[in-house]
């Protein structure tokens, strides 16, 4: 095997090794910006099941963001499914918080709006400053407080 061939093989191997790293970063890139495609999908599908009257797509929240408490930074992409919050393991957002109940609150979509409902929790659910006593619509960007956790709906 000639020196030159081996040199070429060596350089090619290093190049391929780096190409692998770059390809891996490429896969991650879609993961980082993936929320956009994932969120765009429900918006496209929304008109089909929804009633024609409730189609204010622009104002619809697309994700729920935890802005305070131990789970800060967690985001959940909103779909058609209700979201439960509590300490129970089967809740969508599991909070480990002495001030939260097992099944603390629920968020569900209705006519293009998201409604928060307290599920009889001990310490209550707060929308902005007021206690949630009956199902209440949640505007965008208004904090919902559950124990030490604060969540917010965002576009």
């Amino acid at each position: 095997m000639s020196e030159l061939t081996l040199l070429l093989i060596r350089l090619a191997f290093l190049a391929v090794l780096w190409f692998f790293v770059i390809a891996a970063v490429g896969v991650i890139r879609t993961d980082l910006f993936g929320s956009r495609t994932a969120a765009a999908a429900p918006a496209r599908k929304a008109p089909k099941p929804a009633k024609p009257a409730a189609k204010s797509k622009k104002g619809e929240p697309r994700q729920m963001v935890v802005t305070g408490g131990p789970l800060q930074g967690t985001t959940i992409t909103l779909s058609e499914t209700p979201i439960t919050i509590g300490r129970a393991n089967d809740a969508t957002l599991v909070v480990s918080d002495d001030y939260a109940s097992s099944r603390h609150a629920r968020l569900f979509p209705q006519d293009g709006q998201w409604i928060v409902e307290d599920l009889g929790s001990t310490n209550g659910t707060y929308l902005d400053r007021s206690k949630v006593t009956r199902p209440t619509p949640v505007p965008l960007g208004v904090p919902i407080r559950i124990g030490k956790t604060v969540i917010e709906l965002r576009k």
Partner: protein
Amino acid sequence: MSTPSVEPVPLPAKRRLAQLAMLAFAVVITLGAYANVGLAIDGKIPSGMLTYGLSLGGFMLAAYLVLAKFAPWADPLILPLVTLINGLGLVMIYRLEEVDAFGASANQQLLYTAIGVVLFAVTLVVLRDHRALQRLTYTAGAVGLVLLVSPLLPLIGEDINGARIWIKVPGGQLQPAEFAKLALLVFFAGYLVAKRDVLALAGRRLLFIDLPRARDLGPILITWGLSLGVLILQKDLGSSLLIFGTFIAMLYIATQRTSWVLIGVLLFVGGAVLAGLIFDHVQARWEVYLNPADPELFVKTGGSEQLMQGLFAMSEGGVLGTGFGQGHPERIPLAISDFIFPAIGEELGLTGLMALLMVYALLVERGLRTSIAARDPFTKLLAGGLSFLLAWQVFIIVGGVTNLIPLTGLVTPFMSQGGSALLANWILIALLVRMSDAARRPAPQAIQDEGMTQVFQR
């Protein structure tokens, strides 16, 4: 209540195709390296290439299929990245075996890789919900402790190369500390989830830092004592540093308190100075670290020869390396295990080493990403802890062989020849995959409309 849609809600991509492509890519790179070794040493493609490629490709395909079936939402990159590291390690060991380096056996390592993949699959199949581990918090702690002390027991323990970290099992030896790490990590995560409020909130502010109460120092002192025990009784510097460092990191993740890190570093420095004063083997390592080029130390038994040979090898490699099969990594003592990193450095050069470190970094990044995306605190802590363990291990060994920090004997994860570490690390990866599956899985779907009562799928 709006009617839940009958058709499934659009979901984030599973990216199976990307995963399969990256996996194939990793196997192809490994085979290229294998061929390269043969071409450089014998001038022809090695005869075992087909068997080798088929078996490695087969194992990884099997791992992929298990993953696709039992953890379909798992991160698409974890498995390919591990495959590449494991594959490059295999090639390096094969290459060292070709020139009759002491103890190198590529077939044995291939066998261990197979067992590792089997353990990976078994973990994924058996452990459907990793949160079950949270219930085993104290059991895991006890198992970890027993595994850690088992080499000290008279009948089953064994002393090899001055470190008493082995136990005899039928057909060879096992390093139980590698598995103990995982069990202890599960214990740390479960324990900190339960106790983190008191560790995070109680205390008072002194000058610029929040100090915890004296009585809350219990856990950190016990872990400190444990790692000192490992250091003194088993002379295993690496594991000692690994366990303590990981605990501090997890404590920090759980409480977000800088004071814990400060206390941990102080305790560590205190322990290290103490150990250096009392024990010869710690002191010897320290001297080697300060003066590796000292000719007297070089010729001494247990001196700096190994470290210097590693440094020579890396300088021989330079930026582009000598190429596979064209260097002399067999001159480094123990190039197959602790010193596989300089051996790779000689043949692939700085460019190759950086690529390798990038692959490790990406793997750790995927783990931390899993931790961020996780929905419950136990998963967050466990995923963060496991990723940190991996990163910390790479740092300790790479820092050691490049003389950045004193050398402590640790294996390079997935690369070094050695069954126990490889098996334990494959289990670690299975846990990460399981958790990333749970974290990336879309929120539970309502499976039927029952008016105001909803049934949730878990």
